[in-house]
């Protein structure tokens, strides 16, 4: 097996870290489903199947300089940018210590200034113009920064995608538009969502490159993303990257995907689950062995278990705190 990661400038440790983050995102996700199905948390929205695309993409950025405006499936991305298992579980339980929103938002509405993650909302794609605005601001201040924003293929139909992309293109801003095309917008399949061949083709309309990539290969995604980020840092403007992935689970805990897709299709996709595939690659190039795999797995499970216990015990925000932070506190 050819060693792809060295050629990309990634060290052995870095790809092991990639694996760790992918696994962590998956295990947290699975734990949240279990908690939901056992009645402990009311809502989960999931990322299973998309970890490779997310982690591969996130690694191309500079976590000390860049900002991200993710969407609600980006567990892998925000994990790379610093969200811990504990953070995820606190958010799932809506506890006061949740760094995203203090329990005010549903889980997976990521945000955290310390992690350089802009706070997000539920209406889709609104984060795209925000990312453009951050890129504009950074450039106005002469900063070396690139902004990441992501969305699903359904969300790429929103006006905000087109308006934001156009603005970014006109002003040649350092922003990367990352579309995770997982073939379904809840229940609506790609064929009913989009008329063009590929989302990436839309970039032509906005004057910048559009690139398609296999979202199940984290190194491929990394390669393409790194190119785009370097381009942006050099002042050459935005890139639209479309990662082809698959959502292995329903849209959220309120969705039943048996209504709109066959079990065979899902099974087939599970055979291409990117996490075991990446583990195989890592073993093939001698970076990972059974022992190390077990170690990483145990480490991840320990973190997830500790996080679950911690979050379940953690206190809720006080009811009266509902009234805080409408405006800056000094003015009432």
């Amino acid at each position, binding site marked *: 097996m050819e060693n792809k990661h060295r050629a990309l400038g990634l060290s052995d440790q870095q790809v092991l870290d990639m694996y760790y983050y992918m696994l962590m995102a998956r295990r947290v996700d699975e734990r949240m489903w279990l908690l939901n199905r056992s009645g402990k948390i009311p809502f989960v929205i999931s990322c299973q199947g998309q970890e490779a695309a997310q982690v591969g993409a996130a690694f191309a950025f500079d976590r000390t300089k860049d*900002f991200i*405006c993710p969407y609600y499936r980006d567990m892998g991305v925000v994990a790379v940018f610093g969200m811990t298992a504990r953070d995820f579980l606190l958010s799932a339980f809506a506890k006061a210590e949740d*760094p*995203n*929103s*203090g*329990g*005010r*938002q549903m889980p997976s*509405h990521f*945000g*955290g*200034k310390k992690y350089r993650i*802009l*706070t997000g*909302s*539920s*209406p889709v794609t*609104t984060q*795209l*113009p*925000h*990312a*453009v*605005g*951050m*890129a*504009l*601001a*950074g450039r*106005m*201040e002469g900063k070396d920064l690139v902004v990441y924003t992501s969305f699903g293929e359904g969300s790429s139909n929103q*006006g*905000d995608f*087109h*308006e*934001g992309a*156009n*603005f970014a293109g*006109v*002003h040649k801003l350092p922003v990367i538009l990352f579309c995770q095309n997982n073939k379904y917008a809840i229940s609506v399949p790609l064929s009913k969502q989009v008329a063009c061949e590929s989302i990436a083709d839309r970039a032509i309309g906005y004057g910048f490159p559009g690139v398609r990539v296999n979202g199940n290969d984290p190194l491929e995604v990394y390669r393409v993303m790194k190119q785009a980020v370097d381009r942006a840092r050099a002042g050459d403007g935005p890139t639209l990257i479309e990662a082809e992935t698959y959502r292995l689970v329903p849209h959220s805990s309120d969705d039943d995907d048996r209504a709109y897709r066959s079990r065979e299709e899902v099974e087939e996709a599970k055979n291409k689950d990117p996490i075991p595939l990446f583990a195989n690659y890592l073993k093939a190039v001698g970076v990972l062995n059974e022992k190390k795999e077990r170690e990483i797995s145990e480490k991840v499970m320990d973190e997830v278990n500790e996080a679950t216990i911690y979050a379940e015990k953690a206190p809720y925000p006080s009811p009266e705190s509902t009234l*805080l*932070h*409408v*405006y*800056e*506190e000094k*003015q009432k």
Partner: protein
Amino acid sequence: MAMISYIEAVTQALREEMLRDQRVFILGEDVGVRGGVFRATAGLYEEFGESRVIDAPLAESAIAGVAIGAAAYGMRPIAEMQFADFIMTAVNQIVNEAAKMRYRSNGDWNCPVVIRAPYGGGVHGALYHSQSIEAMFCNVPGLKVVAPSTPYDVKGLLRSAIHDNDPVLFLEHKRCYRLIKGEVPDTDYTVPIGKAEIKRDGSDLTVFAYGLMFHYVMQAAEKLALEGVQTQVVDVRTLYPLDRETIIAAAKSTGKVLIVHEDNKEGGLGSEISAVIAEECLFDLDAPIKRLCGPDVPAMPYSPPMEKFFMLGPDKIYLAMKELAEF
């Protein structure tokens, strides 16, 4: 002190704040080279360059959204909606994003954006260049809505809006742009957001107004004074959140209240002011609370007699005030 027009007050405030703080910048349609279709940003492109006075593509949601992102980052953007009538596509960004950013992040992020929009009629603008849209935004906690009436307040409030660490919707009455002139000092003064002002005192009746209507009310008050009626006129200034304290004190002082606004009657700002007064001032009311407003039709039509019918003029206002005074 200089005597300047309402629109000059806008330009001056923008210019002085851009000089004072590098983080302040403007974006909108035609704001740069053209200086704005009303020329509110005249001269700023020449002085500050295209990087700080940005001619944005024709997309209101992006204009708002990009400004919101830049504000969250830490800049002080001022986004212009060319006409308030076109703000609708940006409502999602303003209401769901800007207004809720601080609250949803539990105080971690905030959004110090200003969104300016010319509103109001009397310029033969018809249905889509004359609307008053304030009521739609005046129950969005996290947002502030400001509508000054005089050049002094325009400059002071725009400065305050730019300094404010929360999003402010800054509504400018387009008919007032060149019609209204006033004295404006060249000091660094600001006018606080959240405070109404009693611009004329009197003991016979209290009239609440803002925008162009404020000036018509003042004219009518002058006329009534010659007949021995003393009108207390309150310039609302901040439409949301309302200055309940001033509203209550003013209503209690005369017991007779008239609210005048150009916007449609049902669901307009008069409803909220009336409710506050009804809740707090029942035993000081000497007459039912009155509202004189635009009729409940979608917007003012183009044809002159129809526009005139819709708009409140000094005569209609005078008659309503007189009737209340005599009640």
